[in-house]
């Protein structure tokens, strides 16, 4: 049964959800959109981020977002290490197509199972003052646990966009997608640039993980629902376009929110994957694609 208040709240919830989805996807926008690396293990790293935020929060009472920022360097290093293996084993041998995909697929499972073995399959939560609070504007309900991640996510996007367009390394990253030869002539090593970019993409997983566990309870297999979402958003938004990612994330968030509200939550996974299939079939360049 359809009511305007319900619809508006579904819309608002969708926008907030979209902001969060954008944070989850930004890593893939960099690794797949710009570097052409199909890292389907990314959601597993996000869950890893969630668990690290959980530990720091449960043991030391640190706010999950602060915890994620503390963990950033470790995630960066992890990303650099993974890229190094990927580069030597696959890029240099020209075997990215099959072996590279299988590599990340394996990493996805290893990460998930290690988390199961260490933490078990119980849902984990974080404790923070804003997790249970909401702001109410008229009949519009703004849960703080969704609002805060959404706002910080937008900040993260702005920061990354500035980084990519204003700094030398940032511009080199954008360039490496288009012309590696020109990059070499500028005395920048494409491998090093790509490593930095990939490391940044994994670092974003730390923050995204914190957002996730603020928004909902987490257990190791939650990551799988997000594989379709991140690629759907990435493809819909157009590979390599950061603004496109935000728009696509909002669209997906709103679509899922409406589906959940009016048809029931069990249909929600089909929304993202369905959008992905349709986009791939009819407009693979996405909305704002290169």
């Amino acid at each position, binding site marked *: 049964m359809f009511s305007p208040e319900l619809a508006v709240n579904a819309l608002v919830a969708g926008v907030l959800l979209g902001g969060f989805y954008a944070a989850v996807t930004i890593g893939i926008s960099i690794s797949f959109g710009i570097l052409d690396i199909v890292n389907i293990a990314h959601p597993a790293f996000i869950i890893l981020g969630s668990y690290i935020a959980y530990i720091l929060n449960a043991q030391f009472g640190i706010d999950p977002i602060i915890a994620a920022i503390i963990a950033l360097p470790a995630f960066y290093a992890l990303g650099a290490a993974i890229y190094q293996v990927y580069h030597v084993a696959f890029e240099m041998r020209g075997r990215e197509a099959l*072996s590279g995909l299988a590599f990340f697929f394996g990493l996805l*499972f290893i990460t998930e199972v290690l988390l199961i073995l260490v933490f078990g399959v119980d849902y984990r939560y974080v404790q923070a003052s804003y997790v249970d609070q909401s702001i109410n504007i008229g009949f519009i309900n703004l849960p703080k646990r969704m609002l805060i991640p959404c706002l910080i996510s937008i900040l993260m996007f702005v920061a990354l966009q500035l980084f990519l367009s204003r700094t030398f390394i940032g511009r080199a990253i954008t360039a490496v997608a288009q012309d590696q030869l020109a990059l070499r002539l500028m005395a920048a090593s494409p491998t090093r640039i790509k490593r930095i970019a990939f490391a940044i993409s994994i670092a974003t997983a730390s923050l995204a993980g914190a957002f996730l566990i603020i928004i909902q309870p987490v257990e190791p297999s939650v990551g799988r629902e997000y594989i379709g979402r991140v690629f759907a958003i990435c493809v819909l938004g157009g590979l390599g376009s950061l603004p496109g990612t935000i728009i696509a994330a909002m669209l997906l968030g709103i679509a899922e929110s409406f589906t959940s509200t009016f048809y029931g939550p069990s249909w929600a996974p089909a929304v993202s994957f369905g959008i992905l299939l349709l986009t791939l079939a009819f407009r693979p360049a996405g909305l704002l694609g290169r």
Partner: protein
Amino acid sequence: MRSAIFFLIAVVVAAIVFACALAINNDYVFFAGYTVLQFIVLATAWNILGGYTGYVNFGSAAFFALGAYSSVFLHKFYPMPIPVLIIIAAVISGLVGLGMGYLTLRLRGAFFAIATLALAVVLQTLIVNWNYVGGSRGAYVVRPATIAFLGNYVHYLFLLMLGLAVIALTVARTIEHSSLGYGFATIRDDELAAEASGVPTLRLKLIATTISGALMGMAGAPFPYYIGYLQPSSAFGLEYAVNSIAMPIIGGTATWLGPLIGAIVLGSLQQYVTVTISSSVNVLIVGLLLVVFVVIAPNGIVGLVQSILRRRRYERKPA
């Protein structure tokens, strides 16, 4: 060796395997053996698309589950003998493979791989919401206790899966040695050059997707009878996706032998680990082996053996 001869040899080997299983006379052997045989079919089917043409399918579970659920549907609607169910499953899964291929094969391999993942989830969501086949509550399929001639029904299921394994391996080998196999290899090596050389790449890829999907569906058709109680989470279980990729890669993707070896080695290992340790460690081991092999031995066990043999041949030559 002509395909007909290979088929006959395979049938003889299968008969010997069945006779040995009967001699051991332990039901566990049949249950575990069924699982390993199922993986032989899935791994071989995956490899026709993934190994031969280079297009990775992450959604093997979808085709497998399609086969399983078409059996459930027909069981409720009008029960029929399993061989008929297998054929129907082949047609349904083959058509879905064709359709999905038509939508996504014009894109690069990476997009195809992601699309297969999307398909698996969409299908799972559809099934979960479809009450006629049980939805998320699951469906009971009562396994008959006996069947004519053989007696024990589990023996019958084992025999059926043996037959499917023989069919899958023969199909794979026939393709490998035909001009179709050449065409597949050109797609894997360099699709652009293949097109320029006159290879109808889209058509060949569609053939590969259809055959691969059909074989996976066939493997799924007897599953409800084997397991008795079918839930979407078990039919769409991610262990099918991981294993159908890991087994060919670890065994070796270049020939029909690789998936067979990978399925037997990994399948048996997993049966042992699940029973003695846990099923999570199972998936961990498969994941680790997959990553290790893909980084260090990308040509799989078959590739390793081949390079050892080649090195020996060089060492034997006079300096």
